[in-house]
């Protein structure tokens, strides 16, 4: 029987009070975003926002607890934008969304910074789940002004992420978010390198690793290479593109575990637990696969949502996992 694990890919909306307080304390311009050297007042807001995120997940009944990444002003580019050898350039669009992040311009060696490890260590939960950008997506979001070529830069980003993970506290699961595998997939010649990079980052932790992809499905050649990476699960966006996700699974197989993006992280329409359960059954029936474990999650990060709908979706995910297990 498949173990159902209700979780999320992190990057939560800030609580509304934290939006107000941080707007006031930090300001609204490019230069006001996170730098890593914030004063005690700002740090205090982040600490309370983190506690809020942990409590919200506990109240909803999720099976994994993420930090919520309140400090990630630049979304998935965050681990680089706070790095001492990275300058931040202009604001650029975050994938195809109405959101923006600062262009991380890498100007020196990407040494491990410990920034994400410190956040994760502050999470008081036994079922901690770490969230990082996957190496290919972080490489794709950044501008290299230091390394010799793309291959060397991807290797540097990979080593950097592995170095971050080495400093992580104990965690049950690591979600590597790889939307760029969908949105800007590697060229044929680079697919193997991207997969190796993911494999190397995954090897840096003893926890279960989920490579989560969204905003559609991965091109099949990229998917075939991704299957070579030694990870525990691949995450699929069944909201944006169920058919092609299914195609990849049925054509190329998948890992023993799976992450199912079943809840729309970018629409306020709240899926009921029954709807989510029906979608789990639909995936099961159409893949003819008995997974060891299925992570039930939103397809995308959740910061796109207003807080009330975000909380309702966490609850639906948690209830769906319980409901489906009872039914089974």
């Amino acid at each position, binding site marked *: 029987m498949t173990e159902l694990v209700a979780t999320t890919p992190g990057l939560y*909306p*800030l609580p*509304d009070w934290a*939006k107000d307080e*941080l*707007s006031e304390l*930090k*300001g*609204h*311009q*490019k230069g*006001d*975003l996170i730098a890593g050297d914030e004063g005690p007042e700002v740090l205090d807001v982040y600490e309370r926002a983190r506690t809020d995120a942990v409590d919200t997940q506990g109240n909803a009944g999720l099976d994994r607890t993420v930090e919520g990444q309140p400090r990630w*002003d630049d979304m998935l580019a965050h681990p680089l934008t706070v790095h001492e050898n990275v300058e931040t350039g*202009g*604001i650029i*669009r975050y994938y*195809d*969304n*109405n*959101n*923006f*992040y600062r262009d991380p311009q890498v100007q020196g060696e990407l040494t491990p910074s410990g920034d994400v490890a410190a956040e994760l260590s502050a999470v008081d939960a036994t079922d901690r789940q770490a969230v990082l950008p996957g190496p290919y997506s972080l490489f794709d979001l950044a501008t290299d002004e230091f390394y010799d070529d793309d291959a060397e830069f991807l290797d540097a980003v990979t080593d950097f992420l592995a170095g971050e993970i080495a400093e992580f506290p104990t965690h049950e699961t690591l979600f590597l978010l790889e939307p760029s595998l969908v949105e800007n997939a590697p060229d044929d010649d680079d697919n193997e390198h991207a997969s190796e990079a993911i494999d190397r980052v995954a090897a840096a932790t003893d926890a279960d690793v989920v490579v989560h992809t969204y905003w559609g499905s991965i091109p099949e050649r990229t998917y075939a290479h991704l299957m070579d990476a030694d990870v525990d699960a691949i995450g699929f966006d069944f909201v944006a593109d169920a058919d092609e996700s299914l195609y990849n699974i049925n054509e190329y197989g998948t890992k023993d575990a799976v992450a199912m993006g079943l809840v729309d992280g*970018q*629409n*306020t*329409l709240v899926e009921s637990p029954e709807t989510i359960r029906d979608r789990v059954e639909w995936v099961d029936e159409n893949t003819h696969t008995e997974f060891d474990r299925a992570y039930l999650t939103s397809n995308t990060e959740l*910061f*796109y*949502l*207003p*807080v*009330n*709908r975000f909380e309702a979706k966490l609850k639906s995910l948690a209830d769906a996992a319980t409901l489906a297990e009872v039914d089974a």
Partner: protein
Amino acid sequence: MSENDREQFRPDDHPNEHFLLTSIVGSYPKPKWLNRVSDLADDPESRFDEEQLREAHDDACRVMIDEHERAGLDTVSDGEMRRNEMVEFFADRIEGYEFNGPVKVWGHNYFDKPSVVDEVEYADSWLVDEFEFTQSVASKPVKVPITGPYTLAAWSFNEAYDDEADLAYALADLVNEEVEALVDAGARYIQIDEPALATTPDDHAIVGECLDRIVAGIADEVRIGLHVCYGDYSRIYPELLEYPIDEFDLELCNGDYEQLDVFTDPEFTTDLALGVVDVHTAEVESVEEIKENIKQGFEIVPPENLTISPDCGVKLLPREVAYQKIENMVTAAREIEAELDAGEIDLSPEVSAD
């Protein structure tokens, strides 16, 4: 059509033969007191009521119109003092929308992204009161910015329509009703703001269909502009030349005019409103710097088809910075006009008048 309908905005005392229409994109920083007053009006504990808020809005509009006129702009607005945000303001007036709370745009900039939970319907006019007040106060022609239907659809959560295009078309019909009402009230310069097109440029045909619906039945002398914020313009050009509009307002300063070449082939066949000051930096560009930016526009269109504006709405800038940028922008435009009159500027051969 466009060469004629811009002449109606030339001031009687315009000092130069050439006329580079100067304009704003729309939003302007609100005075701090207005924000405080708005907070008070929201606070049930305070004794501040809606009527007093309206009075405060009127006062703020008078100040902003005056500020635009002092800066020397040829067309002015009220700086959108009554509007909280470009989608929220309209969603609040359209049946079928509901609000759930703020969401992030970038950094600590948020907006109350609304949800469409039912069919959208036109109830009361959205902007006619605002326009009539502005026109009664202003001594210059008034430009009216309206958030376009594609953006109203794309920047909402869609819970009710099969897809975003269906929602956008339904909203376009409502925008058409509103434009008709504005024209009846005397408006002659209307700008449709479609920043969302920059986000999803492959939807340019949906925007085209929306614009066809918006201009249906609108008289030719009404100047209709389209503002599209910074993005990869090569993905919407030259398709946008097919749109039924008089002027494109583009954000090119922010990208240091790197995308200028996009618009030179094929030939740009409508008016260009060129962003010449960056709204994302609080550093005020000098008049000389802005003059160089204006000259970039001559790579695309001749002076008689060039409108001068900031890159985008200036509401996130400190007020004194916004004012200084606009004032420098107007000064630069007037100096360029004089230099054109004196034959001191070489226009590139493909855009010279002959």
